[in-house]
């Protein structure tokens, strides 16, 4: 699966907390100023924050422009980089680079195995003559997991560009530390810390148990197989929310809480939002295709629907079309949305784009 493209802001002088908490306070400012440029800025650890690249790049007209805006806004000694996955993006920020999509493995190849922050693994690998991430990536995967264990296998997938980040990169207490730096009550955040302190000063037993089971599934199916839902703003069901890998920076932030956007359909929302929309044909009682007029109305009454060339199914009710003129800076996408109930009791959400109908979501 494709790794999420991330922008990382790296402020080396703010990485170590001094006695008076000055660094944390300045880092809070960095996060806030970056947040004025782009939403969804997530602190990763002291001195490092990340944000998804795709949306801002569309908005500002390219990743270079995003980087330029952030560099101007940050007002601290630091650097910005863009790459696929958090690990690569942090190294890209340290090198002040934008690594092209799909090329993170080549970018990582010359870095030392020590950058993995796994000292025991690094020593063992260097003893075997494996000194760079590229050499490590070239080892056959089954051998790595057999000889070195699951954590090394995770490092190996990272070096091959198959996963985006490693356990331990993020500071789980960062939100709490920043709340302290802001002078807020550390336990009175807008949401509880993701890990409750337990008997041993670390994660509680239930949290550890859950985290271990997620890690086991990730080991089995890949890091991107275990996802959590985050609400964002947006009109389309596919834009209002996102599924992001569990443990990724986007998964940790508060999200925007699904602030209602104008043009959003009222609830209930569909329970299944198709990753790949299904092509659909729609005709009136005379068998003519139903089209949306220039004024955003249906030119005839819907009678039946066929999905992906399947059999014609009678339509008993429909509503819309609701025209959706997509964001003002994009002139290409103009959509009209239609809800529809079939004779068998099922309901669907469809949209029309350039005279073609598509099934977008199902109300199961």
């Amino acid at each position: 699966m494709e790794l999420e493209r991330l922008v990382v802001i790296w402020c080396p002088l703010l990485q170590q907390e001094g006695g008076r908490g000055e660094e944390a306070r300045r880092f809070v400012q960095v996060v806030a100023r970056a947040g004025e440029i782009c939403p969804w800025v997530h602190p990763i650890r002291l001195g490092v924050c990340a944000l998804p690249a795709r949306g801002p790049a569309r908005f500002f007209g390219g990743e270079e422009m995003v980087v330029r805006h952030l560099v101007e806004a940050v007002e601290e000694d630091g650097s910005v980089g863009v790459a696929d996955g958090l690990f690569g993006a942090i190294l890209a920020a340290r090198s002040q680079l934008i690594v092209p999509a799909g090329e993170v493995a080549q970018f990582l190849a010359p870095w030392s195995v020590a950058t993995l922050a796994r000292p025991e693994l690094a020593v063992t690998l260097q003893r075997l003559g494996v000194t760079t991430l590229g050499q490590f990536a070239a080892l056959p995967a089954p051998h790595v997991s057999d000889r070195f264990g699951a954590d090394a296998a995770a490092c190996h997938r990272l070096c091959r560009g198959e996963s985006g980040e490693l356990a331990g990169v993020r500071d789980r207490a960062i939100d709490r530390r920043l709340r302290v730096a802001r002078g807020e009550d550390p336990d009175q955040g807008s949401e509880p810390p993701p890990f409750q302190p337990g008997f041993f000063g670390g994660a509680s037993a239930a949290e550890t148990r859950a985290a271990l089971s997620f890690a086991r599934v990730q080991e089995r199916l890949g890091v991107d197989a275990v996802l959590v839902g985050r609400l964002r703003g947006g009109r389309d069901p596919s834009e209002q929310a996102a599924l992001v890998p569990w443990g990724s920076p986007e998964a940790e932030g508060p999200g925007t809480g699904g602030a209602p956007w104008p043009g959003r359909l009222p609830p209930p929302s569909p329970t299944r939002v198709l990753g790949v929309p299904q092509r659909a044909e729609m005709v009136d009682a005379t068998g003519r295709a139903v089209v949306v007029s220039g004024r955003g109305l249906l030119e005839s009454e819907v009678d039946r629907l066929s999905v992906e060339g399947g059999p014609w199914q009678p339509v008993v009710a429909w509503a819309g079309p609701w025209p959706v003129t997509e964001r003002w800076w994009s002139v290409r996408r103009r959509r009209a949305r239609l809800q529809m109930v079939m004779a068998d009791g099922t309901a669907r959400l469809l949209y029309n784009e350039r005279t073609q109908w598509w099934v977008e979501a199902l109300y199961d």
Partner: protein
Amino acid sequence: MFAFPAEIPTEKPLESPAEKAVEKSAPLRSRELPVGLADRVRPTTPVAGRLLPVPAPLVPLFPDGALRRGTTTTVAGEPGHGATTLALALLAAVSQAGSWCAAVGLPDPGVVAAAELGIDLRRVVFVPHPGRGWAEAAGDLLRGVDVVLVRPPGRARGTVARHLAARARDRQAALVVLVERGSDWPQGGDLALTVGDVEWQGIGQGHGHLQRRRAEVRVSGRRSAGRDAECTLWLPADSGVVAATAATVAKTAKGEDGSVGAGPDNGPKAA
């Protein structure tokens, strides 16, 4: 091309920090136990209630008024008739209470709908595309979370169903299985919920919008205590939550527990 050296000294595999953390908090590890016994010991579940809460409108469906830990519940219904909504609704109250939940094999889950149903998104992980590994993934997750919702890709094999039900029992988690027909889950569940007739309201021929869905839900199964019941629910109501219809509220109000029923703002504005 780099050749993998043959003479690698066999070393203890590196342990991940998470594994180390667990070791620290569990001084008695199973591998320190006598052989023979190590296979039979089981980690104990921390003392917790035996029941996991469900949203108020669903309380009448459950003999205990809640999901019971260690049991399997099947949720069946024709595709598109609301079985997914009902199954997701079972995660709402549990996740709000702070328990972790997981949904395995639900392709393309509607995250906004899940939130509207009352699910706390911070406590639910989705494994939408487990492929052939769905049963193993569900088994792994039953070790770690309180409720696992799984949608098998087709009719499950008997051994797989027995294994997962046993895992849920051992780990004192609740297993919820989403199937098209109850018979798709061999042996059936301890409790079987079936969505029957449905009707969408609020939408006409070119006007209105999808507002709420009225659904008949039938309860049966070993743990239903012989009282096969049926009730009518809004699945969902117009705010996106599951709610009792006026008829169901009246019925339960007459029963032993008057507090059961839709919350004041759960019900649809007009029946």
